[in-house]
């Protein structure tokens, strides 16, 4: 029943080192010189990769537990950044992020699971399906553009019809392609080119991308009608979405035609492909894409919708579109995060995507500060290493009820934060790379768009 002080000390040091690492990474990326940026990036990636590659088995610097925390923090950051785009920057209170995370995880896992079981239909089906649905969505969009003022229900019906047609076509094409691809896997004695380790790595990359795209397309179809509801109603509807997705996961083998997902028992046998390279790469993609979106005219439109919808409309911004766009991008990020997570953990259970756990990203972005990318990044890593890592281990020494105690303590922390500093730890401040780029002639006139009044 006594706390190991040495362990406490080392864990605290770890949290400080991780946060310092992130700060240094963001600061280096924000440097003016391109060479410093690239060098810093390579160094940041290389340090951890070198430790992973060359640390001795008996004296690990980053042990398996910390490695797990690191990767989960990366995926959590992706999900939370997406949510911050939707809620923090665009002002749409969404609780559906966890559902899209689950969709991404299951979609990516299904592709690679089928691939390792010599079935290319997962990849071809999702790839063709995602493409055709995208074509259908853009096609219907062009059609609708001619009929201004169409009620949202009609538009939704047209999109739905387009999607259903695209999915039906996909099943035909993927089924027809399958006999041609099957021999490429080879047999057990003479594996074909598809069965190699490199092929799996490439498939993993596309699986994660496609998982993101699938999540984005579903979020488009869902968000189109639902974003017209008011703020709280939107929150409840998205919470409902997470619950519906979770119900579907629990019954994926009975209600849905996916016996390999094994319903409530959990999906096993997902190849553990995620390594530090992939986790770092996808996190970097998400951070850079989001930063560049936010500091473009699109980003200013997104912010203006949060600040005042009427004023934004007067300035010629299509409010409905600029609510939908961040929602879709945010879900894309969640889908990517889900794909990376599934291939790290190797096992998916519906309990992971329960809506109660789904409050975590929301709590992270509120902790870090709504409308602050840096805050979200620091908060996700800190949250993961502190709550999941340190606190769980400390509480674990007091008995078997550690997870429950953790959930008792962190609402209290949350309440204290809300009472003492409701705008989050960082408010809307940004660090290094994530600061708005300085525009030479108009630095005084154009204030930092990220620094605005707190969200209403």
């Amino acid at each position, binding site marked *: 029943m006594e706390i190991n002080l040495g362990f406490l000390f080392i864990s605290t040091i770890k949290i400080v080192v991780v946060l310092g690492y992130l700060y240094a990474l963001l600061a280096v990326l924000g440097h003016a010189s391109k060479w410093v940026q690239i060098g810093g990036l390579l160094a940041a990636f290389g340090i951890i990769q070198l430790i992973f590659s060359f640390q001795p088995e008996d004296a690990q610097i980053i042990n398996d537990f910390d490695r797990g925390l690191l990767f989960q923090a990366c995926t959590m950051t992706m999900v939370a950044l997406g949510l911050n785009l939707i809620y923090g920057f665009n002002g749409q*209170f969404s609780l559906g992020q966890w559902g899209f995370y689950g969709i991404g995880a299951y979609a990516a896992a299904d592709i690679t699971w089928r691939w390792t079981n010599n079935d290319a239909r997962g990849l071809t089906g999702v790839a063709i399906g995602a493409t055709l649905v995208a074509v259908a969505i853009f096609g219907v969009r062009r059609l609708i553009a001619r009929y201004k003022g169409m009620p949202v229900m009609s538009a939704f019906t047209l999109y739905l019809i387009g999607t259903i047609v695209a999915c039906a076509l996909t099943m035909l094409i993927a089924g027809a392609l399958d006999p041609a691809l099957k021999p490429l896997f080879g047999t057990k004695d003479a594996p074909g080119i598809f069965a190699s380790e490199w092929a799996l790595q490439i498939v993993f990359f596309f699986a994660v991308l496609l998982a993101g795209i699938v999540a984005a397309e579903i979020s488009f179809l869902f968000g189109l009608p639902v974003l017209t*509801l008011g703020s709280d109603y939107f929150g409840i509807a998205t919470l409902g979405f997470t619950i519906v997705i979770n119900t579907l996961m629990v019954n994926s083998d009975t209600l849905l035609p996916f016996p390999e997902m094994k319903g409530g028992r959990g999906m096993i046998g997902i190849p553990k492909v995620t390594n530090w390279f992939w986790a770092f790469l996808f996190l970097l993609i998400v951070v850079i894409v989001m930063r560049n979106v936010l500091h473009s005219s699109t980003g200013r439109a997104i912010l203006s919708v949060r600040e005042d919808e009427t004023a934004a409309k007067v300035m010629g911004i299509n409010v409905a579109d600029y609510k939908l766009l961040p929602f879709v991008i945010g879900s894309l990020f969640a889908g990517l995060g889900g794909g990376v997570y599934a291939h790290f953990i190797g096992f998916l259970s519906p309990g992971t995507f329960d809506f109660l756990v789904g409050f975590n990203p929301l709590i992270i972005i509120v902790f870090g500060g709504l409308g602050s990318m840096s805050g979200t990044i620091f908060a996700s890593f800190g949250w993961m290493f502190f709550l999941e890592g340190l606190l769980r281990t400390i509480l674990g020494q007091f008995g078997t009820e550690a997870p429950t105690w953790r959930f008792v303590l962190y609402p209290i922390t949350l309440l204290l934060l809300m009472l003492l500093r409701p705008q989050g730890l960082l408010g809307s401040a940004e660090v290094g790379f994530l600061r708005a780029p300085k525009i030479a002639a108009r630095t005084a006139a154009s204030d930092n768009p990220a620094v605005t009044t707190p969200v209403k």
Partner: protein
Amino acid sequence: MQKANAAQQPSSNRRPGARLAWIGQGFLLLLAIMVVIILGRNLIDNPELFIQIIISGLQLGFVYALIALGYTMVYGIVKLINFAHGDVFMVGAFVSYYAVARFQLHVWPSAFFPDLDPLVTVTLGSLSVILLSMITCAALAITIERVAYKPLRDAPRIAALITAIGVSFFLEFFGALSFVFSPRFIPYQRPFDVVTWYIKDGIYLVEPGKAPPAGSITFSNILLIIAVASILVQVFLQFLVRKTKIGKAMRAVAFDKPTARLMGINVDAIITTTFAIGAAFAGLGGVLYAIAYSSIWSQLGILPGLKAFVAAVLGGIGSIPGAFIGALIMGQAESLTAGYISTPMRDAIAFTILILVLLVRPTGIFGEPEKEKA
């Protein structure tokens, strides 16, 4: 729906898309026809089963109505989704469990007045258990309101919402600790016996230990108690809000807080009262839910709470009859889905209905159109 159409009429000449409203309406109509066909076929195939499902849906709906009242009142006044309300409901169920199973509170009338009719003593005993639950829940809600929500009254709305989620988490997981309510399902001991009747050419009592004859419709005294309690609460709240001074003050605070304060209304006291009343009826709902489904655990309140909120939104948030009707609809939808489509989808159906209803009527069934307020 007709109102919405009427509002769009004048602009339809200038906006070519408005002429295509029939696509969306056709889609909704198709869905409605599908539902009617599924239900109609089942009604004709097996009318007894259909009525049985309707009865179980009624039982569920009346309990949801009790919880939904608290949501709708609180949201109507402070515009806060009180996530902790469902957990107050759970606490109500647990208080009655401890009162009955541990402290035998429900037998005090027969202990003190052994000469009384057993029906009277059981009723008195059960009522005292319910009263204890209601008072505890009201006290809990007042504490939550004072500690967590009141300091944030002028903060951004999200702060209060996150706080509500935090309080909800706290109650759920604090309750899951082994020395509080424990994380397991606990069999619930009823303070009175269940009496079941069946309907087949008249109403007969089901003998204990015997199954009712095939093809009959059964109902129990629990359904009657829940229905009577729910309707009485409904009438009481209508009276409270429409006819009393405190109800008038509540409506004034809901309409415009600063002006209500100028009129000499103690806004904080009114808000606290609202929380307490809502929580008391959630406590009543918790006891009745536990009696009806006879198994409780620390996360009992989450899904009924959410569905009750959905019911309140469905009926038009802020409207008390709306919450009642919405809850009945929700109970039927859930029970019919479980009966005819698939049991696991019954949690999903609530939110699907919510989205569809809000798309057609954004303020809910009984909601008044939102007024522009500064």
